[in-house]
């Protein structure tokens, strides 16, 4: 890496303007030198011989004429074994090790290597001398917790290369070379287990992208049954504050049926990350029997951490996601919240004095959001395996109004929309996903026709409810009233789910199919109810029965006993 000098000519918040002598690269990393500290920054605009840099730290103390060193590479992350179970900040600094080094507070200018240089990994080669490889080819593997972590040929290789040597099975550190490869025109390259990749460029070392059709089960009933997501798909959760976005994300991060979960806490409360941080190492992953932490990476750039690093954090997260996808794994990235990321863009745009778009967001907001979500996808790898990266982002619209630019730009590019509503969260109807407004374009694993029928029921119930507010219960016909009760019943026993109950919090697909069939039966059955009070009593009791059914262990005696009671009631 060459280090070309420059010097500061202006400072405005976390943006500095630097006069350079030679050349700079757009999005190049640079370090502003402040005494013995080197503050990481990124080139974001060049004008003549002056470059504007966003600094990933506080700029207090910097002076005009202070030196700036350009690093010659783009903002990158380290990819290799040892990423899982870690907690990073937006620039991939491991936070627990930072705490060991600096104590209670984050210290600016301190950057640690993301991956441990000491850990020995048991390397098993998957190729032999003379084999042909290309970008992303699996050269070998090391066990990383429950996964076979594939060591891959660098993603920036062009064309076919030949393996000239590969180490034998044995322990090595991430830095030590495991293979040497040569290109057709005679260049050679050493390959180590760790490689760097610029975060803002997508890793595309796969054969082809595929349509996301395989369902991703979240074990949240309203999502899986009504608004499903697919592996490799994208979805967004907009909602006003207090509507339960973060709880929904946390529940998803626990129960989603994927191999790896990456949590990007972007500009949100530190307290929420702390919960994940302290609880995941003790929670068991039902799929593997190991702790949830072993399949999790946390990227945490909370609201009080520097804003520019917040912008970088979602890219760091998605790049790590793409890396694991290249191993043929199914990855889920949960970004909370993309609005904070968009605000970071807005702050920078303001400092650059760009012409503002709607609500002062920059004009390129939409294209940035689109290109971020487009990094999701189900892919077929060159070796024949397939992997997926699913992205779910929360959106925090100002005033809870979905008409604002970030929500609208997101809705254009995602495949499913889980809109949370204040009315539902106020009424303690969790998860507060609005069943009338939300949508999904992904295929359903549950009887499509029955779901459609239930949807119509909900719509009808909502209409009757509106009408009753005007004419009162006494002005409503018994038929209408029963339709309303059926919709309420569906809402209470199926759409609502208790995130704090050990059984009810996660409903596997098989159980959803079974229970939903039963609920559909109730919705379709014509009950002979003559008056409203009787109807109300009937549905209240039925609701109560289903509500005791939900927390009963799947196929336990309790489960069967309650089912019989239900059957007796609706027969």
């Amino acid at each position: 890496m060459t280090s070309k000098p420059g010097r500061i000519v202006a400072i405005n918040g976390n943006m500095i303007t630097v006069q350079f002598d030679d050349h700079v690269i757009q999005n190049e990393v640079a370090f502003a030198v402040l005494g013995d500290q080197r503050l990481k920054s990124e080139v974001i605009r060049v004008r003549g011989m002056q470059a504007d840099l966003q600094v990933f730290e506080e700029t207090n103390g910097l002076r005009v004429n202070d030196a700036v060193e350009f690093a010659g590479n783009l903002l990158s992350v380290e990819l290799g074994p040892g990423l899982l179970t870690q907690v990073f900040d937006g620039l991939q600094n491991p936070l627990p090790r930072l705490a060991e080094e600096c104590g209670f507070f984050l210290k600016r200018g301190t950057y640690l290597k993301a991956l441990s240089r000491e850990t020995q990994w048991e390397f098993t080669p998957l190729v032999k001398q003379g084999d042909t490889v290309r970008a992303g080819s699996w050269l070998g593997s090391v066990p990383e917790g429950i996964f076979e972590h594939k060591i891959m040929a660098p993603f920036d290789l062009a064309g076919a290369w030949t393996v000239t040597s590969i180490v034998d099975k044995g322990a090595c550190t991430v830095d030590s070379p495991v293979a040497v490869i040569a290109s057709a025109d005679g260049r050679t390259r050493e390959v180590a287990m760790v490689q760097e990749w610029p975060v803002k460029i997508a890793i595309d070392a796969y054969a082809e992208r595929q349509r996301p059709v395989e369902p991703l089960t979240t074990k949240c009933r309203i999502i899986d049954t009504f608004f499903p997501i697919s592996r490799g798909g994208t979805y967004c959760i907009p909602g006003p504050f207090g509507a339960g976005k973060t709880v929904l994300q946390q529940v998803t991060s626990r129960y989603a049926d994927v191999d790896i979960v990456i949590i990007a806490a972007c500009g949100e409360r530190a307290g929420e990350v702390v919960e994940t941080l302290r609880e995941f190492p003790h929670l068991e992953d039902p799929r593997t029997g190991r702790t949830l932490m072993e399949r999790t990476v946390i990227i945490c750039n909370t609201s009080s951490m520097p804003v520019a690093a917040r912008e970088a954090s979602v890219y760091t997260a998605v790049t790590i996601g793409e890396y694991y996808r290249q191993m043929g794994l199914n990855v889920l990235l949960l970004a909370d919240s993309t609005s904070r990321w968009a605000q970071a863009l807005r702050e920078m745009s303001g400092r650059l004095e760009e012409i503002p778009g709607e609500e002062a967001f920059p004009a390129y907001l939409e294209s940035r959001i689109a290109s971020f979500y487009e990094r999701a996808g189900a892919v077929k790898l060159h070796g024949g395996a397939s992997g997926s990266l699913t992205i779910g982002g929360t959106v925090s619209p100002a005033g809870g109004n979905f008409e604002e630019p970030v929500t609208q730009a997101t809705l254009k590019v995602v495949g499913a929309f889980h809109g949370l509503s204040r009315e539902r969260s106020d009424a303690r109807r969790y998860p507060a996903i609005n069943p009338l407004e939300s949508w999904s374009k992904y295929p359903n694993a549950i009887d499509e026709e029955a779901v459609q029928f239930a949807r119509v029921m909900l719509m009808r119930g909502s209409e009757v409810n509106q009408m009753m507010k005007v004419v009162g219960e006494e002005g409503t016909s018994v038929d209408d009233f029963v339709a309303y009760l059926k919709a309420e019943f569906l809402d209470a026993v199926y759409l609502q789910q208790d995130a704090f109950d050990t059984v009810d919090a996660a409903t596997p697909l098989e159980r959803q199919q079974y229970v939903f069939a039963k609920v559909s039966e109730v919705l379709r059955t014509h009950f002979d109810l003559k008056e409203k009070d009787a109807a109300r009593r009937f549905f209240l009791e039925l609701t109560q029965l289903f509500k005791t059914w939900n927390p009963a262990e799947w196929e336990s005696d309790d489960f069967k006993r309650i089912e019989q009671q239900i059957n007796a009631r609706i027969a």
Partner: protein
Amino acid sequence: MRKVYTRVIQIAGNVITVSASGVANGELAEVYSQRGTSLAQVIRIQSDRVALQVFAGARGIATNDEVRFLGHEMRVSFSADLLGRVFDGSGVPRDRGPALSGNWTEIGGPSVNPAKRIIPRHMVRTGIPMIDVFNTLVESQKLPIFSVAGEPYNELLARIAMQAEVDVIVFGGMGLKYDDYLYFRDTFDTQGALVRCVMFVHTAADPVVECLLVPDMCLAVAEKFALEGKRVLALLTDMTNFADAMKEIAITMEQVPSNRGYPGDLYSKLAARYEKAVDFDGAGSITILAVTTMPGDDVTHPVPDNTGYITEGQFYLRNGRIEPFGSLSRLKQQVNGKTRDDHRTIMNTMIQLYAACRETQEKQAMGFQMSAWDTKLLKYGGLFEQRMMTLSVNIPLERALDECWNILAECFEKSEVSIKAGMLDEYWPEKSRPAGGSAA
């Protein structure tokens, strides 16, 4: 020997620009004008043009006034001597005590490493049932009181401060009416809390820039106490004034406004302050209780809206009462399972019934028929408002829970409240018992 600059090339609002070199971003300077000496802080540098915000305001500054850079950033002196003292936003004593000196600590320091935080686990008892029972305040929580002007939010704040079991209170007043400042000082004084209290007060008559410094001064001091193992309660009133001060400076600096004139970094700026609330792994804690007045009772106004996304809930003060709907303590789940076994049940039951009562009230207002159940609900609502919601009610949590059972028993039959049988047997008061006397 520090260089003195005498060429002010621009004055706009409270921001002056001087021609100077070798100045660090964020550095403090002293400005000597005919009105006296004021501190100023560097907020932008463009080659040799250095923009400073003048704490005392730019009024009266001459283009040839002297500006001397001090070589350090805004800081506050920290020692146990701070307790019982009152300062203004730039750290100048408001009482007759000595000026701050020595043991300086910079304000607006770096963020706490999330890996050094722990999950909050201690309840803060306030003696207010609407808080203790329904939206429990938790140590290290950051919680604003949302309110419109005219509500008794400062009284509520003072009362919580007096009754909360904490070691140190750090009070930050922003844009306070002078009367309110005196009210707080006298309340703390008469209740004997002044000795464990530090006050930083910016009144409405003081220069706007000082308002911006108040939260940082407070939280820097609070952080120091917390690192010494103290449980600190930081009170900030009113954060809307703080946001308005930021707006004023941003507009003066010709920044592009984002929403209703507020700067685009409003969220980050507010979050940087609120996120100072912390429970340190191996030291003390900071709990932040703030006031956010909502212009026009509009919760979607940028200040309450951004605040709501940052804080861990909010207390909604309306008509002199803490509203059960809209109020929220996100951390209550961490503690209310450990108080008394009926706490969560009572909390949920009471709120559900009160919600039903509100619906009935609406039905009543529209002239629909009232059933027997409706009548019961109306009676319940009245008792609930009178014995729980009224702000003057001041009882410990356990008595408040007992009182809830009494209200239920006075209005409903056992079978109507949908509480588990086991709990009913244990807590349902017999009719003959006097109010408030049921056994725990």
